[in-house]
């Protein structure tokens, strides 16, 4: 059962009709629907091309948040071998909104860290919808330190609406935990590559994405604030999220122009959720490519280059 976004309604109708026809044919032997169904398929395909060829920034946000979009866990399972989940911040708890551990990527030992949103009610609650608490960032700091010690590249997968705005999270130092995680990203002498696979929500994303290379999926977003939040503050009306999404320049395409993202990873037509195998393979290729770019670089050069990248960021505006 596909989940359709509001702007995909006409598409849902056509694909629904094609599905109905095929179901009818299965129940009535001898009924030939092949050509009719194929015509509907072609129509749906054309519509997808049309819709996804010119997604507005707000629609990109919707696609980035699509409930069936592959999440961190899916990428880890498909792209890494020997994944060894490592838990806990050694201080208070293990935050299930953040996955992390050692693994092999193309046989090379690495550390992988990412936000996981969950894919059904149970797992979404368990993962807190991908909104990390201080323990999540502190676990990441611990894993990055270990990676640095043993010379393992770090790969981070970004997909969070933002850090969790909760009472306990604040009491236990949400701000400090995020600040230390960003600081750690800047200190490690191993390659650090990030992929924004869905939502790059504000400080919660920066804490993992202060990397040598940042790739973004074609329909992912990365922003200082959610369009709804921005709309309610600047427009005093949270229904103005379309305008806010437009103004914030949060799409992968704009972030390339601003020099914040280094590469855009193509998604299958209709978004990552329509063909998981394809998008996962594309992400794998991008990670391999980014790691290759840093092959043989010395620790101090990696640190210096990472710092320089962030120091000079934004100096050219949209013309970067």
């Amino acid at each position, binding site marked *: 059962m596909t989940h359709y976004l509001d702007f995909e309604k006409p598409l849902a109708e056509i694909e629904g009709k094609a599905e109905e026809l095929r179901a009818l044919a299965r129940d009535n032997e001898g009924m030939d629907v092949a050509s009719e169904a194929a015509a509907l398929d072609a129509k749906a395909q054309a519509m997808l091309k049309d819709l996804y060829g010119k997604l507005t920034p707000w629609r990109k946000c919707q696609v980035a948040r699509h409930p069936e979009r592959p999440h961190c866990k899916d990428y880890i399972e498909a792209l890494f071998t020997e994944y060894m989940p490592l838990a806990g911040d050694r201080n208070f708890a293990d935050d299930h909104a953040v996955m992390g551990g050692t693994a092999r990527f193309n046989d090379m030992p690495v550390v992988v860290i990412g936000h996981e949103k969950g894919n059904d009610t149970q797992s979404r609650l368990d993962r807190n919808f991908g909104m990390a608490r201080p323990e999540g960032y502190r676990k990441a700091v611990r894993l990055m330190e270990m990676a640095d010690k043993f010379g393992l590249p770090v790969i981070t997968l970004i997909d969070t609406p933002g*850090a*969790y*705005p*909760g*009472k306990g*999270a*604040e*009491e*236990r*130092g*949400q*701000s*400090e935990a*995020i*600040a*230390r995680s*960003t*600081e750690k*990203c*800047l*200190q490690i002498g191993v390659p650090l590559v990030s992929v924004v696979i869905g939502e790059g929500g*504000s*400080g919660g994303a*920066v*804490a993992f994405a*202060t990397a040598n290379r940042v790739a973004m999926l074609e329909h992912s977003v*990365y*922003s*200082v*604030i959610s369009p709804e939040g*921005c709309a309610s*503050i*600047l*427009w005093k009306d949270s229904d103005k999220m379309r*305008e*806010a999404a437009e*103004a*914030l*320049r*949060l799409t992968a395409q704009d*972030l390339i122009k*601003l020099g*914040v993202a280094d590469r855009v990873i193509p998604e299958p037509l209709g978004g990552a959720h329509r063909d998981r195998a394809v998008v996962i393979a594309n992400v794998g290729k991008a990670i391999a490519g980014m790691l290759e770019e840093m092959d043989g670089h010395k620790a101090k050069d990696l640190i210096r280059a990472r*710092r320089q990248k*962030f*120091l000079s*960021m*934004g*100096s*050219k*505006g*949209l013309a970067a």
Partner: protein
Amino acid sequence: MNWITNYVRPRINSIFSRREVPENLWSKCDSCGTMLFHREISDNLNVCSECGHHMHITPRDRFLALFDGGVFSEIDVPEPLTDPLQFRDQKKYPERMKAAQKGTGEKEAMLVAAGEIGRTPVVCAAQDFSFMGGSMGMYVGNAIVKAAEEAVRLGRPLILFSAAGGARMQEGILSLMQMPRSTVAIQMLKEKNLPYIVVLTHPTTGGVTASYAMLGDIQIAEPNALICFAGPRVIEQTIREKLPEGFQRAEYLLDHGMLDRVTDRRKLREELIVICRQLMKMPPPTWGDLPAPGPDEAKMPQTKPAK
């Protein structure tokens, strides 16, 4: 006001400018409601003499009271691109900027200066909440980078007074990028073993708290300052319950181990002098009214960082 050039304004100017204020001007304390004479408020660093409530103070007024004899040299901050995203909400971003500049007489939301406090050479940066909520954009990032570079060049501690509603939304992702950017600046100081002291003032929230404002060697806050990542309203909406009294206030953070000290603004100068001199391994300060240092204090002998 001319904010383009580096300049030194002796304290005497501020006394004159205070006199320009009509003598009959009274203000009400936002906290206890007591009517206070303007002169009394400014002499008290904008702290209510009745209840101790800390009212807003501009970076310039803060520096005038902080530096010896009110003398400091303002450090030029490299200009970022104006309106890098061509951001437009109900107003255009450059129009909002102009209104903020007119309203505050300042160029942007952070002031950087070098000078001496208790004969201790320091670099200070202060964020201006009255300028677009003190929000952190490219300029504030540039100011922090510049302040850190100057502190490193001169071998001095950096004292940073934070105050911000968070990131400057009109600069979108580039405001967010000031979190790692300012963190790089702080690392420059740490590598040279130069003290980085943060004074968190009301309010310090969002991405500012989650970057340079929480990375100090010493973390001091002014009494009752709101210090948080997510604001109390957002949290109440998320968890659907009332938050306890004093939640996310300076004293609450102190209780939860997030701060070193909560210090009254009127005692702050003394504390900063003591801490800076200890961390820089300088002899104890001489207290009392010291004459202002010479006009070109930047040429005075510099202290070396502790090893």
